[in-house]
């Protein structure tokens, strides 16, 4: 019974890590420049762009490993340095007492700080839970699940796009052409 519970917890933890790091990596691709600026403001100006690429690549590698090789330890081990790096960024931001925008999940509104510190034990706990009872799906099942997750994210983004596009289209106003001299003429 307890083995079943631990098995379910392991699968759930691994799926949670895959989902979180997929969203994080894809969002960072969209806000790549912002991520570079954030790293630069943390003091790594010289290597900001390279560090941004490295963070995104590491997240994508971790997601791929967690999905395709569910029983392998290295993808879960990769979560630890990433989580520590995020917490380190939070500590650094708190240290310089400056509001630094966090491109963690692509949302420019969040600020680096305590949140990254609080997330550290969560990421580590998920990795430990998954390591204690690793999932046993095969490569095809893993890829199938990842494809479903990615398509769900595409649908989510599409809904966001439609929400923005509809009012923009409805609110489209007529702009007089510059050549039309009396495009807007007072009535009287």
């Amino acid at each position, binding site marked *: 019974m307890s083995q079943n519970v631990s098995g379910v917890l392991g699968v759930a933890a691994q799926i949670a890590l895959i989902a979180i790091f997929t969203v994080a990596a894809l969002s960072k691709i*969209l806000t790549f420049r912002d991520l570079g600026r954030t790293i630069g403001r943390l003091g790594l100006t010289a290597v900001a762009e390279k560090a941004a690429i490295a963070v995104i690549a590491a997240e994508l590698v971790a997601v791929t490993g967690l999905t395709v090789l569910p029983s392998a330890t290295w993808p879960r081990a990769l979560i630890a340095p990433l989580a520590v790096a995020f917490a380190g960024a939070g500590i650094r931001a708190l240290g310089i007492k400056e509001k630094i925008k966090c491109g963690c999940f692509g949302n420019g509104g969040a600020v680096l700080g305590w949140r990254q510190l609080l997330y550290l034990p969560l990421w580590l706990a998920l990795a430990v839970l998954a390591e204690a009872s690793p999932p046993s799906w095969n490569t095809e099942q893993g*890829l199938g699940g990842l494809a479903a997750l990615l398509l769900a994210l595409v649908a989510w983004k*599409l809904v966001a796009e439609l929400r923005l596009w509809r009012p*923009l289209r*409805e609110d489209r106003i007529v702009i007089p052409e510059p050549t039309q001299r009396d495009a807007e*003429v007072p*009535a*009287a």
Partner: protein
Amino acid sequence: MTTVLLIVICLMAVVLFVQIGAQVELFEQVKQIRGYLDMEDKPTPVELGTLEGARPSVFGLPASLDKSDQAMVLFVSNKCETCRNLASALRGGAVPPSMWVVVVPVSGDGNEFIAEFELYSERVILDEDERIVGSLGLDLTPVALHVAEGKLTRAHTVPTVRQMYAAAPIAYKHTLATKSSAQH
């Protein structure tokens, strides 16, 4: 084979996510630019001043408006581009209930404008010699003038067709395919 197909789906989904994400960013920027340039679809209030509470017929508007519970008078000129857009939506005299249209001929013949958009309705008036707008002191188009209990209550600009329908006191039912004239 299945594995390759799944890998292709994953890669395509990632590309699609990034592309849609970029479009979302683009739309956000268009929204910001519109807000910054004050080009949002928002009607701007027009101060009525001492005209507030006056009877519409005093300014040459139809006397029936004096007895109207709720009505809206839309002023369109025959030259302004937005007015043409609004008139195009009213083509065939499909004027929403309780809405009147005053065509202001700022240059040329207003009848040509009425004919062009087939604004043939008993609630479409041609403001010859700009008599009505002149007495109201109105020098803007398109403008909506609201009447409640037979008195002028408020006025605002009408930047889009959507705002024109939104300003109509009685909701106008859009019928696809067949555009019937909403008369009463």
